[in-house]
């Protein structure tokens, strides 16, 4: 039996995956080629490896464990503002690190709202610095993402199944076992792997909230090797280790787990007859409320502190905002050109292991990619003239794992639902893409494009390595304002960034959902 009845050409997918691996390998190769002398990893490096793995593992497990009940509650309840809330779930993820950290600290920090409340009852203030703080921040960043990914899985269960379950009089428990559990098994490992990889690359968050050098991650060691010691050999080895860990996690999560796909439904809207009434209803409400509060209160503090500054932003900020919008649009195009063929390939394969190639895009240190490509570009062109395209490319690579995680399950559903009919009609090539696949995964495309646009807008990434006076992006300009003591203007710039990033996300996501066949 062929893996799939659908005749999606694999050439595009193989080409895109090869290109991604080649881009990363070329950068790594260039860095290693320029390395001189001997290098060895000391005990401090191994401590960093251990800490990195441990915090990434815990962050992934906690984020996903919390996301499952929240996504379940969101999946079976309908309430006013639900769509807005789901869209807002994308917001913490796209904040520049320093902004998010300040937002979290405004709530949970030493002088934060939580401690002020505790103070009213005479309770000694809590300190979040340490592993707890690192996890808190990582859950803040990743819980929304995990929730969206799991919710998306939940919504892929055809409406007919719930109708049937209701007719058979199945209770919530049985519905969970029969309908929901198989979906969870399908989406949870991928979400775990993705968040694990994101947290592997954490640097400023881990260090700042980790309270000191105990919270040293590999990414910090890479940064130190590149910029402070200029030890390219060590930087290359550390980058390779980081890639290895991410690759290992991806293979574990994606290769070993069976990629079952449900046979498709007719795409009518889901009504949940099984949603329990009474006390459980309040439990769902409480879950949604807590998750929303945890995410939105720090966000609100960022918005509030930005309001005084946004009215009087210097002109340079708007120039940078325009660069950011441009970079963001470009990186969405690059991303889709890479992600769609890859997702098509993975979606029609029995194993999802190829997705690991996409995860490498995030696991590769931006500093390594930036430096590697700097070495490669330098003999031929001034790197600063390519600052924005290189930034867009690196941002697209970073968004690739998200896009694949979002697109692949949708692709599998299209294959399951439309595969036989399309094959019978002999659809292939661009017609297949245009008439069957793209309309079928439109919500996923919208979500993935939105996430990529926002991620790219908020990312400081490699721009600082290449930028000159005229090529600053908005996050860089915001850092520059902070560096010039202008905290109020910086907070205003952060708010502008949130508005732009969230606006881009909302536009793409809404475009996807408007055309959604089901939901």
């Amino acid at each position: 039996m062929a893996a799939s009845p659908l005749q999606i050409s694999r050439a595009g997918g193989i080409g895109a995956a090869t290109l991604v691996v080649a881009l990363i390998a070329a950068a790594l190769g260039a860095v290693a080629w320029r390395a001189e002398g001997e290098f060895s990893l000391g005990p401090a490096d191994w401590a960093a490896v251990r800490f990195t793995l441990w915090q990434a593992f815990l962050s992934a497990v906690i984020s996903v464990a919390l996301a499952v009940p929240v996504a379940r509650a969101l999946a079976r309840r309908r309430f006013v503002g639900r769509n807005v809330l789901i869209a807002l779930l994308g917001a913490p993820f796209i904040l520049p690190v320093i902004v998010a950290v300040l937002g979290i600290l405004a709530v949970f920090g030493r002088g934060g709202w939580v401690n002020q409340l505790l103070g009213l009852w005479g309770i000694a203030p809590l300190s979040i610095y340490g592993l707890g703080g690192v996890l808190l921040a990582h859950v803040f960043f990743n819980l929304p993402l995990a929730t969206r990914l799991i919710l998306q899985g939940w919504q892929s269960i055809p409406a007919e199944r719930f109708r049937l379950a209701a007719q058979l009089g199945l209770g919530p428990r049985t519905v969970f076992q029969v309908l929901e559990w198989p979906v969870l098994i399908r989406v949870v490992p991928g979400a775990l792997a993705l968040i694990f990889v994101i947290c592997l690359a954490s640097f400023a968050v881990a260090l700042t909230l980790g309270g000191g050098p105990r919270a040293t991650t590999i990414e910090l060691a890479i940064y130190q090797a590149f910029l402070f010691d200029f030890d390219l050999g060590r930087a290359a080895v550390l980058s390779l280790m980081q890639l290895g860990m991410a690759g290992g996690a991806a293979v574990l999560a994606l290769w070993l787990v069976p990629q079952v796909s449900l046979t498709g439904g007719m795409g009518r809207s889901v009504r949940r007859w099984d949603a329990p009434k009474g006390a459980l209803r309040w439990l769902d409400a409480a879950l949604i409320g807590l998750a929303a509060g945890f995410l939105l209160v720090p966000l609100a503090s960022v918005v509030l502190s930005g309001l005084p500054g946004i009215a009087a932003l210097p002109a340079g900020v708007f120039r940078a905002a325009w660069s950011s919008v441009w970079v963001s649009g470009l990186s969405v195009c690059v991303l889709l050109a890479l992600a769609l063929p890859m997702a098509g390939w993975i979606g029609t394969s029995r194993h999802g292991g190829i997705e690991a190639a996409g995860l490498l895009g995030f696991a590769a240190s931006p500093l390594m990619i930036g430096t590697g490509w700097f070495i490669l570009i330098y003999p031929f062109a001034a790197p600063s003239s390519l600052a924005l395209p290189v930034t867009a490319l690196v941002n697209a690579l970073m968004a690739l794992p998200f896009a694949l995680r979002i697109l692949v399950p949708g692709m599998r559903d299209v294959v399951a639902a439309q595969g036989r009919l399309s094959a019978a009609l002999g659809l292939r090539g661009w017609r297949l893409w245009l008439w069957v696949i793209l309309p079928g995964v439109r919500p996923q495309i919208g979500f993935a494009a939105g996430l990529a646009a926002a991620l790219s807008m908020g990312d400081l990434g490699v721009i600082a390595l290449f930028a000159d006076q005229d090529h600053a992006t908005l996050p860089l300009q915001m850092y520059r304002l902070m560096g010039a003591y202008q905290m109020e203007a910086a907070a205003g710039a952060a708010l502008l960034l949130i508005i732009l990033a969230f606006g881009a996300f909302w536009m793409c996501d809404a475009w996807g959902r408007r055309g959604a066949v089901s939901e």
Partner: protein
Amino acid sequence: MKPIHLAAGVLAATVATTAQAQTPVLTVYTYDSFVSDWGPGPVIEKAFEEVCACDLQFVGTGDGAALLARIKLEGARSDADVVLGLDTNLTAAATETGLFAPHSVDVAYDVPMEWSDPNFVPFDWGYFAFVYNDGIEPPANFRDLADSDLTIVIQDPRSSTPGLGLLMWVKAAYGDEAPMIWADLADNIVTVTKGWTESYGLFLEGEADMALSYTTSPAYHLIAEEDATKKAAAFDEGHYLQVEVAGKLAASDQPELADRFLEFMVSDAFQSAIPTTNWMYPAVTPKDGLPEGFDTLITPETALLIPAEDAPALRDEALQEWLQALSR
């Protein structure tokens, strides 16, 4: 009159375009905050271009350490003519690359140390200090700080220039006792951040009583925000000095222009921009003196500085001690 004006305008425009096509370009690599709209870059570019008949182009590259890494990466092929923004912790490593050429600047510096480096010219300087909000009792030295309940936020010496400065400060003041000082300070340190920006942000948000910054930081708040509540704590061991320097690259294709830029750098036009854009002390005090507000700053009696040639070896030793003391 009008036609003549018009003609003059057209003529001027033509001259300008031709001039642009032939004007030599001087490329100066510097740290990112120097070229930002709020840094000294734009003012200095305008002032130098008025006298040099050239096009001055600043290229920003992260911070001071990233600047040196960039130069090493580019080697002799670099487009840079001048590198501006290294400090004395980095000059020995920079000299070792062999990429820098001797300068010919000879002026009387107002830097609190004897300056004799043949390759690098200082353009500004400052003392590291802990900045606090009025209302707390500032400690008088590191031992005092370690004994107190005051909280501080500092920068990681592995990723930040001021962080490295603090490391050298404690080492210069306490030598072999430095590990003990760090061990005692451990419970005062709220957290360690990637760079100055994060630390100072946390301090302003009230996450710590003090942040490692400069003695000149209160001048910003006083002059730009009319806020007199920020102070720098005077430590009786002395304060560690950061001297920021520029140097000419040996492979520059504009060596004369680069020399002129270094001369210009210690002149009033450049130096008078420094205090209120870079918030540091000018290396040569302009003839109008320092801006009002700088007289309110603390002036340490002892300036500490580890000689540039000893800095790399001491840095590695101090970093190991720091890691051990704070990882416990």
